[in-house]
C-alpha cells in the first residue's frame, strides 16, 4: 500500500496533477491511498518551493510541474520493485 500525497493550494495545475496521479494509479493497478494536502503550513513541512508536488511514501518525488504519465509510471513501478526487494 503506497501513500501518495499531492501538495498544492488548489490551483489548476494541482488539480491536473491529482487527476494524473489517480489515472496512473488506476492504470497500473497499484493500491494507494491518495491524499490532497492543501494547507500551506502542512505543505511547508515537506520543504518544497514550488507546487504542485507529489510525495510518495513521505518522499518528495515531483515538484513544480504536472507529472506526465510516463514519469508517474516510472516512479510507481520503481517503488513497487523496491518494496518487493525489501521483503
Amino acid at each position: 500500500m503506497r501513500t501518495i500525497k499531492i501538495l498544492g493550494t488548489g490551483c489548476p495545475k494541482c488539480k491536473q496533477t491529482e487527476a494524473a496521479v489517480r489515472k496512473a494509479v488506476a492504470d497500473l493497478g497499484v493500491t494507494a491511498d491518495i491524499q490532497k494536502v492543501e494547507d500551506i503550513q502542512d505543505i511547508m513541512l515537506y520543504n518544497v518551493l514550488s507546487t504542485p508536488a507529489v510525495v510518495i511514501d513521505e518522499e518528495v518525488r515531483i515538484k513544480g510541474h504536472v507529472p506526465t504519465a510516463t514519469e508517474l509510471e516510472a516512479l510507481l513501478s520503481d517503488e513497487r520493485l523496491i518494496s518487493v526487494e525489501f521483503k
Partner: protein
Amino acid sequence: MFTWIEWLADKLVFGILGITPETHLGEALHFFIYDTVKILLLLFLITFIMGIVNAYFPVERLRSFLQRNRLFGLEYLLASIFGAVTPFCSCSSVPLFIGFVRGGIPIGVTFAFLITSPLVNEVALALFLGMFGLETTLIYAGSGILLGAIGGWVLGRLRVERYLSDWVQKMATQPAITGDYTEGGQNFLSRLPAILQEARSIVRGVLLYVIIGIGIGAAMHGYVPEGFFEQYLGGGQWWTVPLAVILAVPMYANAAGIVPVIQVFVAKGIPLGTAIAFMMGTIGLSLPEATLLKKVMTMKLILIFFGVVATFIILSGLLFNLIL
C-alpha cells in the same frame, strides 16, 4: 519568420472563405487569424524555452546559490531575473515565499522574486513580442526586472519582516534549512516530455483569452476612431499614468487578454509608458494575489508591498513617457 502565417491567413480568408481583401470584415478577419496563429506559436516557443531553463535552474538551485554566495547587491537583480524566467503560477508564490524566508534569504531578495514573477511572465512576453515587436518587449522585460530588483531592495530596507504573519516569523527564527540542491540525475531527453506537456498545457490554458483579446482588439481597430484616446487621455498629462495604475490594480486579467487591447490603445494615441504602466498594474498586482499572500503577511505588509510596487510602476511609466 512569419511570412508563412501571412500566406496562410491570405489563403484562408480571401481564398477559401472568398472574402475580398478591401472590405472591413476581410481585413479584420485576416488580422485576427494572423495574430492568433503568430502569438500561439510564440507562446509555445517561449514556454518551451523557459521550461528548459527551469529544468536546469529550478528555484531550489537559486535558493542554495543565494545562501552560499555573497553578491553585494546583485542578489536582488538575480532573484528578479529568476522571477522573470520561472513560469509563473500564482499558487506557487506562497510556498516559495516561505521557503526563501526559512532558508535565510533576506526578505528584500525574496520580494524581488515575488514582484517580477507575475510581472514578466511567459504569456506577457509572447503577447508583447507578437503585438509590439522585439524592442518594446525588451523594454518591458528589462524595466520589469529592474523594477522588481529595486522594489525588493526598498522593501528590504523598510525592514518589513516585522509585518509577516506570526507563524512565518516563528519559522524564520528557527535554524535555516539549507537543503542543498541536488541534481535529479535526469538527462535532457527524459525531461523533454514533461517540458513539452507543460508548454502545451499553458498554451491550451490561455487559448481562449488570446482569442477573446485579439477579437476585441480586432473589433476595436475598426471602430474606435484614430486619435480617440489622445483627445481624452493621451495628451501627455502626467496624471494619466497614476490614474491608469490605480484603475489597473483591482482589475485582474490574464496578460493574454489585456495586451491586444492595450495595443489598440497605443495605436489610437495612448502613450506607450501609460499603456505599459496599466499592463503592469493589471498583471503584477491583483486582488487574488493579495488574498493568497494574506496567509503569510499581515494586511499592513500587503498594503506596503502593493504601495511600493505601484509607486515604481507609476515612476517607470512616467519615465517611459519622457524618454520614448
